[in-house]
């Protein structure tokens, strides 16, 4: 019995140190903030993690203009200019997957955020690129983790 409690305690301690974000095949997180608040917070988190926001694609606007009913839905593009340039020049085959992106959309009062896992998308043996991908993964996990912790 004591051992079982110890096991649970250790598991719990381990979990509290890990990210709140689901990390099976992709990053997906929910924030209790409304879409406009979450959108502002996401842009701030991207910047505070050292990345530059390059563009926001307003998916919902195009859909609405074409007569389709939709919730708020955007795609946020971002990256570190020197890293993006290095990869694009060295490995042009990865250009179609760059810059990085996070899809953000409202679901009732909450907002969902989704990102790919760079280590799963970009397949490489280059240690230098692997290092960049590992950092991207850590940063995306961290910024989405911050988003999950935001309260309404």
């Amino acid at each position, binding site marked *: 019995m004591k051992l079982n409690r110890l096991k*649970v305690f250790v598991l*719990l301690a381990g979990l509290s140190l890990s990210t709140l974000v689901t990390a099976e095949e992709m990053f*997906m997180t929910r924030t209790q903030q409304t879409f406009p608040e979450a959108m502002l917070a996401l842009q701030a988190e991207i910047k505070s993690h050292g990345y530059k926001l390059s563009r926001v694609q307003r998916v919902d606007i195009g859909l609405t203009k074409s007569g389709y009913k939709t919730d708020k839905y955007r795609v946020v593009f971002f990256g570190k200019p020197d890293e993006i340039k290095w990869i694009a020049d060295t490995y042009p*085959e990865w250009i179609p997957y760059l810059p990085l992106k996070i*899809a953000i959309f409202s679901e*009732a009062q909450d907002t*969902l955020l989704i990102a790919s896992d760079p280590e799963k998308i970009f397949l490489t043996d280059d240690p230098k690129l692997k290092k960049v991908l590992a950092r991207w993964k850590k940063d995306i996990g961290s910024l989405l983790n911050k988003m999950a912790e935001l309260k309404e």
Partner: protein
Amino acid sequence: MRLIALFCLLLAVNGHSLASSLGESLYQKNCIACHGADGKGGVGVPLALDSFQAQASDRFLRNTIKFGREGRVMPAFKSLSEDELNALVGYIRTFSSATPPTYSQKPIKGDAKLGAQLYAKNCAACHGAEGLGGKGTGVTFSRPRDLPIIAPALNNAGFLKSASDAMIQKTLQQGRKGTPMVSFLKHGMSKQDINDIVAYIRSFEKNQQRNEIAKDEPYYLEAESSMNLEETVASLKQAIVGKNYRLIRTQNFDNGLVKETQEDKKKVVVYFCNFKLLNEALTVDPRVGLFLPCRLTVVEHKGKVKIMAINPLHLSRFFNNDELNNLCKGMRETYEVIMEEATL
């Protein structure tokens, strides 16, 4: 010494509350994004629904988490231990006051051939002729919020490993309040009819259907152009419009990342969209923003001009959604046709 005392004190904390905290932490880490903080659903099914909790055994929930639903978005959480699975199930139970059932694991005897006829008449409209389930995922785009669930895929390895015959039988007999699933006993079926349907559903185990992506699928698509970069971009735009897509934007690849004067003019991105197709894709899976918008990039590299695109199938493999795989097969073909026409 003080540390040991503190550790012993922590160990003395009620085991149940530790397990409950563990369940909550696991839920927040793994489930909350799809199923919502209160289990009312979203991209995922509403776990808090009383009629669901009253019919789903702990074994069903544990196996569902463990095996997922292949090709139906719900991933398999293979790395969770038995303790973690139990803690998670315990936390999911806090969403409802319904008493969890337990079921016999004994197979139910029925005539699968007769069951197939009854299934075709009574179940196929919602669950699909082959048992592959209702179309679409998630409340955001695919269904109004007052419809809490899309008909599940019964012809699915994860479902068949999770649901016992007795659980399927009970669901058919009682229906599921708050969902379109009706009680077939109340709709005139006999208990034997229901057992025949159960036998037919169980027979899906021998006829599993998947729409998987080949392991050797390339991760990008490319076509070499004999024209220069500017001519290729112009030809690409023409080919895109010719396929009924609307051009959204043309920009240098690093636009927005560097000063306009420093942009690399040898890498040009053409964004385009077909909103009908986009709406359909969002119905199939609200997470498809990661594919958006449709895009082809013209790159001049080492004296060669190439059109490049993501291979949608490379991305789709991470979504665990067979319906999306189908759409991505079509999208890959479209990209290839456009690239071919643009480089002729």
